[in-house]
């Protein structure tokens, strides 16, 4: 295999080209746009830090930021814990287990619009399945209005988002679980370790690189959440379920404020960047690559 010095660069060129044109280019434009007032139809007007000043002084922005954090706090642990439990369940050697693996993966590949239709019906105040069950089986006198309730709208969305996302993370955990050598468990049980001890002393530590990876992508998923909000509540009631990515979309495409939306996007990039940076700094302490 002889090749010139250029050959490897030629191979990576298409990817670099794609990244430049479709990622870095737009990011740079957005960075510039964040300093302008721009409705896309007319040329941008330079505002310096105007958008950023407005942003920190707007109540709605802080509400949306809080919503994003709350969503993340429910979504990330929800997805990680449930997907790990599910991965352990479907890692058993049972007949037809592949069927269940496929089943749990289904929500992830189901179109969000279809999912939203069903869940909106489940959450409906008067004729919803959930409230029907609550009032008739659990005797709850005054069940919440879920998606139309200021307090419950966001947690309800987070629940749906977890339900939809969890299959994907399960798959990665499953791959991780299957790479743990069976001999370790055998040795542990000979030494008298309980299942519980095996889980905490063998499974979890060996899974930690995978767990770290899942943590990072799940946090990014949480910050980027859009589809669920768009299809189920549209950010309502009164922005109670609006999260950053959706707020960016609204400003850019329904209010015609590309400049302000770009400033919001820069802010989102900043918090995603900082979170990821911190995670990577903590990695060395938390992740074990071998026992």
């Amino acid at each position, binding site marked *: 295999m002889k090749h010139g010095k250029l050959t490897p660069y030629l191979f990576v060129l298409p990817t670099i080209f794609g990244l430049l044109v479709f990622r870095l280019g737009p990011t740079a434009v957005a960075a510039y746009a964040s300093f302008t007032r721009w409705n*896309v*139809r007319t040329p941008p007007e330079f505002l310096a830090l105007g958008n950023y000043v407005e942003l920190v002084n707007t109540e*709605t922005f802080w509400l949306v930021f809080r919503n994003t954090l709350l969503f993340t706090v429910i979504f990330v642990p929800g997805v990680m814990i449930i997907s790990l439990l599910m991965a352990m369940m479907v890692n058993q050697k049972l007949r037809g287990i592949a069927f269940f693996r496929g089943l749990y993966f289904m929500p992830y590949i189901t179109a969000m619009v279809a999912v939203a239709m069903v869940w909106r019906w489940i959450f409906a105040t008067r004729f919803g399945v959930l409230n029907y069950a609550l009032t008739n089986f659990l005797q709850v006198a005054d069940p919440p*209005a*879920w998606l139309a309730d200021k307090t419950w709208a966001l947690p309800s969305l987070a629940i749906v988002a977890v339900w939809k996302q969890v299959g994907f993370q399960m798959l990665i955990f499953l791959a991780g679980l299957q790479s743990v050598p069976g001999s370790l468990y055998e040795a542990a049980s000979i030494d008298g370790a309980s299942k519980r001890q095996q889980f905490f002393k063998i499974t979890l530590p060996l899974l930690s690189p995978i767990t770290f990876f899942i943590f990072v992508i799940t946090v990014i998923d949480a910050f980027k959440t859009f589809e669920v909000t768009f299809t189920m509540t549209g950010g309502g*009631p009164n922005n109670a379920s*609006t999260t950053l990515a959706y707020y960016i979309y609204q400003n850019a*495409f329904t209010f015609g404020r590309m400049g302000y939306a770009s400033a919001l996007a820069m802010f989102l990039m900043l918090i995603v960047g900082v979170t990821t940076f911190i995670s990577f700094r903590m990695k060395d302490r938390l992740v074990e690559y071998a026992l």
Partner: protein
Amino acid sequence: MKPLKIFLVLLILAFLLAACGGSQAVEEPAVEEPAVEEPAAEEPATEEPAAEEPATEEPAAAEPMDEEITMRYFMWDPSFEETEQIMVDKFMAEHPNVTIDFQTIGTPDYWTKLEALSAANDLPCVFNMSAGFVDQWISDGLLYDIQPYVDADINPDDYYTGVFDVVRDKNSGDMYAFPFAFVETVLFYNKDAFDAAGVPYPTEGWTWAEFLDAAQKLTKDDNSDGVIDQYGFWFYGRYAHIESWVYQNNGRFLNENKTRFAADDNAIEALSFLDSLIHEYGVAPEPKEMEGIRQQDVFPLGLAAMWVDGAWNINGNRENIGDQFNWGIAPIPRGPQATGDAAYGWPDSMAIAATCEHPDLAWEFINFMTGPERTIDLTFGGKIPIYKPVALSEEFLEKDQQPDNKEFLLEWANYTGPTTFTPGWGEWRGYTDGAGLEGRLGEVFNGESDLDTAVNSITEHANGVLERYYP
């Protein structure tokens, strides 16, 4: 692992297929075109329209007749798609060289879509334009000046020209869209429920006190389980639900120039009356109780005996209610500060994009869609056609269908008063996102906030938006 692998391969295939499907869908109209246009050879296009209105034909004649033209037309109401398709087909039959690529998109997504297309410089040639967005679109230079066409082709005696002002540029006075119908809000009421409760039907000059009294008698818990089965009335923060009451109490949300939000006492009185219907008298539900039911279905389902919304819902009501109960329409009840009736109404229009390559043809299309060709069976239920001979015809009253008092629509249109439409209306009113004024009122009506707080908050928010347009 093998089944898993197969599953993944299938998954990737599914994604690829989905991607291909998407691009095919986009290209489809282009593929269909030749088939539709074939008849062009057989029939010279100009003849038929020329017979009706010679004046109109001048611009059209300028287009070479054998040139095949495809023009996109976007409309915002999917429930009228079939009717509209008949009109589009009629136009295409008269213009064999023209293909109208007709699409409907429901609101408010319609506006997001148009907004994106305008940014991409890819607007359809002809599209529906609302009174709420027209000022904004004119000032952004997105619409084509149709004044010369109107001057040449429109006989003012045949049209309700009073509403043309809404679509004029406030500086030049030129028209940038052409109204096709006039719409207004009305009170829908369930006649069967009124009969059962022994309440007389709403009349003109009905006061809030009389309305409240009726609503109380109409609110019923049939099986005494603590859940109201039929409310007297229902509403939420929606513009059609709220402004109707404000104007009937001689109230205003905006200052005189419509440059700032400044709700006056009469407007606040209307809002607090509406809130009292929920929290003091219990004759209307908190809006969140109706979550999961489309707003236009609450009245047809019999969950509320009265409902205030646009008269354009007449068509939907006919379909959804069918023979289940009898219903009628009436004016919005008058508030204590009312000095006369003030209807909340505005024209719905069709506009040509500034970027349209065939403005002559586009205008011909609009003129066709809004004129005598739109016979009564092809009009939009509760909307009053802009073309007088059709609106004033006996058939418009549709005596064989509900409601049996459509003449009321024509009369009520005479009392049209102010609107809240401004540039940025969709944003501060919360029309597109359910926040803004709509969302803040929603919190009040849901019992999560008090009216004073909400009014302060909306004043700050709305003026923040309006200041961007009127510094």
